[in-house]
């Protein structure tokens, strides 16, 4: 593991990402933040609609937002991989990183489930907002909130050491 981390950390790409270029880390993390905000925000807005807010929005009419949400996810997967390449030890040795990754998987799976199941049922004229589907929306909202907490704390877990608290790494 250490040899692998050292290999990644010593690569030209990793050093470029950590380097002084404004096109490197600053741009990567900015894209990651914008797309996170859009994906989590749009998905949460759809969840709120399923839970009964803004009932005037026909569920199937929300479909055109999905390609944009998938684009945001694709950009976040790419920028996420680049940030791990930039700081492999810091990320991959932190248990919180794997919690965040699991929350990403949960959030994206729920976007897919809600996108297919709920919106398609609405399109077919079936009852789309059953109690079960409302639980999916609640899980999605809770997932995004947890993901944001984990994502923000990733940036702090190495700093806890400086405060005398044992770091997670």
């Amino acid at each position, binding site marked *: 593991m250490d040899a692998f981390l050292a290999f990644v950390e010593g690569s030209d790409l990793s050093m470029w990402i950590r380097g002084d270029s404004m096109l490197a880390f600053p741009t990567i993390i900015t894209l990651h*933040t914008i797309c*996170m905000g*859009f994906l989590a925000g*749009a998905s949460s807005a759809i969840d709120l609609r399923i839970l009964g*807010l*803004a009932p005037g*929005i*026909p569920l199937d009419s929300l479909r*055109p937002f999905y390609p944009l949400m998938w684009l945001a996810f694709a950009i976040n997967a790419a920028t996420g991989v680049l940030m791990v390449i930039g700081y492999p030890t810091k990320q991959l040795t932190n248990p919180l990183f794997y919690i965040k990754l699991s929350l990403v998987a949960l959030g994206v799976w729920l976007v897919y489930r809600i996108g297919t199941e709920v919106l398609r049922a609405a399109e077919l004229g079936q009852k789309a907002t059953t109690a079960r589907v409302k639980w999916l929306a609640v899980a999605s909202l809770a997932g995004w909130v947890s993901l944001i907490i984990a*994502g923000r704390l990733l940036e702090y877990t190495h700093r806890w050491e400086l405060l005398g608290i044992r770091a997670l790494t």
Partner: protein
Amino acid sequence: MDEIAPWEQFVRSTALHHFVYVNEPWLWPTCEILHYLGLSLLLGTVGLFDLRVLGLAKGIPPRAIHRLIPWGVGGYILNVLTGILFFSGHPDQYFYNDAGRLKALFMAIAGINILLFYGTTAFPEMKKLAPGADAPMRIKAIAGISLAMWVGVLICGRMLTWFRPPFFH
């Protein structure tokens, strides 16, 4: 840095500054989490409304998706409050910072844009738009400016770190 400006001396003399300064280890990460939740809410609700007005997902009646806006306002208030805490904790980090100044400018333009939307006939005109209807150019321009400004605010917010004044540690 030579001398602390009077406005900064004032900010640093407030109880709020002291509160942030003393509680920074837990308060700062907590506020960042809330700030990111707020930005996601703002981008997810105001962003989807703007995109509908611009012509995406036209099946949605604009007045129906406008019901999501109060949640975006909630996110905005959350971010103003946490932003005040950030600023009172380290005012120089934001004031002597080109990204911080640009962020304030974008927020001001977004604010004027909001006044143009709610203070003119744009708002009642928007409410009359039926599902499938194309919004008038004037309202589309307001939606486009809104989207551009909030993304700009986000970019500048993320870039604050790399434009800190040299004396800031």
